[in-house]
Structures are given as C-alpha cells and as structure tokens.
C-alpha cells in the first residue's frame, strides 16, 4: 500500500491574504481606531483614497470586526475584575443553552467563553469592590442553572499585545 499523504494544513474558511501595508493598517487601527484614512495614509505614505479602499476591504473581509471603547474602569467605579472558571454538573442533563442564555443576561458578566479543559466556561466579571463581587457571585452566578463548581482569580494587571502582524 502506498503511504498515506500527509494531512492538509487546516485553514479557516474565507481566510484573508494580507500584505505588509494591510498589516500596518491593522496594527495602527488596533491602537487607535479614530485615525482618519488621510492621517493613516500619511503615516504609511499612501493616498487617502487608497488607504480608505484598503480599510474597506479589511472590513468586508472580516479582518476588522468592529471597535471597542477603552474606558478607565476604576474611574467609572469598577474597582474589581474577576475571572471565573465554571464547571457544569451532571453533564448531559444540563442544557448548555439554558446556562448560556442566563449567564449572558447578567450585566456584570463582560465576556463568556466556552472552553475545553479544566472548566466548561470562562467568565470575566466586573464589580464595584470585593463586597459587590460577592453579591454578584452569590445572587447571580451561583444560582445559574447547572452550575457545579466555580474557581475565581482576581485580576491584578492586564496588557494587550499587538499580536502576530
């Protein structure tokens, strides 16, 4: 029997091809999305229309997936951020859909990720202080359908990196 061919490297559907200029645009906008096409173009030695066309292409191809505000959490009264690892009990009998709907509706829960590993879900939760966090944990999180185990880690510092661009 001939040897089996190596498995093809898996690639995401509709993967975008980027050149160095596209990558520079993504890097700049990930830092500051308020930059105009003209200002960005000047930085890259590109005309305003050409820059604008590239931004449009990155948006339409899905590489640019919207924007987020950067806010000073502490100045707005949110002094504590906690990451929770959540395990659901009696798997098979708990509806993931019910859990996901209920957890998504909690305003203090900023992100919910379904994960594979030690836990089933990873949540990012904000609160005014530790006492407020305890209230959220007891009244909102521990009462979620199917919840079996919760592991908490309080965020001390956080840094976002530009990534492989």
């Amino acid at each position: 029997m001939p040897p089996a061919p190596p498995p093809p490297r898996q690639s995401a559907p509709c993967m975008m091809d980027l050149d160095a200029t596209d990558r520079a645009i993504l890097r700049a906008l990930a830092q500051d999305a308020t930059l105009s096409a003209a200002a960005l173009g000047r930085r890259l030695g590109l005309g305003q229309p050409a820059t604008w066309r590239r931004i449009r292409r990155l948006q339409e191809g899905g590489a640019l997936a919207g924007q987020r505000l950067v806010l000073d959490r502490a100045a707005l009264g949110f002094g504590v951020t906690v990451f929770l690892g959540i395990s659901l009990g009696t798997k098979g009998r708990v509806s993931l859909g019910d859990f996901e709907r209920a957890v998504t509706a909690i305003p203090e829960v900023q992100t919910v990720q379904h994960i594979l590993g030690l836990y089933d879900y990873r949540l990012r939760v904000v609160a005014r202080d530790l006492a407020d966090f305890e209230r959220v944990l007891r009244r909102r999180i521990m009462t979620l359908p199917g919840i079996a185990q919760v592991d908490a880690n309080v965020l001390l510092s956080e840094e976002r990196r530009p990534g492989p661009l």
Partner: protein
Amino acid sequence: MPVDDTDRRLLRHLQADPEQTIATLADRAGLSEAGCARRLDRLRARGVLKGRQAVIDWRRLGWAVEVSLRLTLDKTDPRAFDDLIAAARQVPEVLEIQTFLGRVDVRLGVIARDLAHYQELYRDRILTLPHIADIEALMHIADIKQGEALPL
C-alpha cells in the same frame, strides 16, 4: 467634577455602538449635540474615555486556535513575574498578558494557526519561558458573550 449619571448614560450608548456619529449619540442619550461633544471632551481630558480601538478577527486571518495558558510561577525568585512578562512580550502570538491574585499567577492568551503550529509554539516558545512551575491549558471553543462592555 465626578462622572455623573448623564456621563454614564452617554458612555453606555457609545459603548453599544462606538462608531456612531455625535448627532446619533446625542439623540439617543437625549442631549444636544454641543452638550454631548462637550461631555465627551471632558471625559477624554480626564482620562475616563481613553480611546477607541479596532477589534481584529484573528480567525479570519488564519489563526484558528486560541488557548488560555494559566501559569503558576516559582515565586521563590523575586524577579519571577518581571522576567516572565518581559519574555512573554517577545512572543508575537501572545495577545494578552494578565496577572492574578488566586491560584493562577499569570494568564497568557495565545493564538496559533492550527494545532500543529500550537504544539510547536508551546514547546519552543512557551515551555521555555522563565520561572514557570505549572501550566494549565484551556482551549477556546466559542465566544458566547463578547465586547467586555461595562454595566454602566
């Protein structure tokens, strides 16, 4: 002047749609355009509103694997955190570096092109980071809620 309820309402609307025009935002928040612009300027000047950033969809760029690596460090060395963070910054595939109080000391948010690439990255760039006592990996399957919106 502290942040008041009107500021919060303004930021809540802006957070839901960061790209809207001042006119739309003013209308939604029930303010005049001039009043809205003035408040935004003030929030920026005081560092409450720090800016706006584009969100990159790494999956669309071919980075299909996302993993949370939760590290426990060997804290007998006082430089453990500083050394590890400095070394992690040198790995381009590390998107996030967070430090914690709890069972986990540091979390690295890492992306890779596929599982083979992840394995390579893990062996050559992650396991070689200094002062690691233990690592747990959580493989990311899906984002159920995104955006990190604050409950303003």
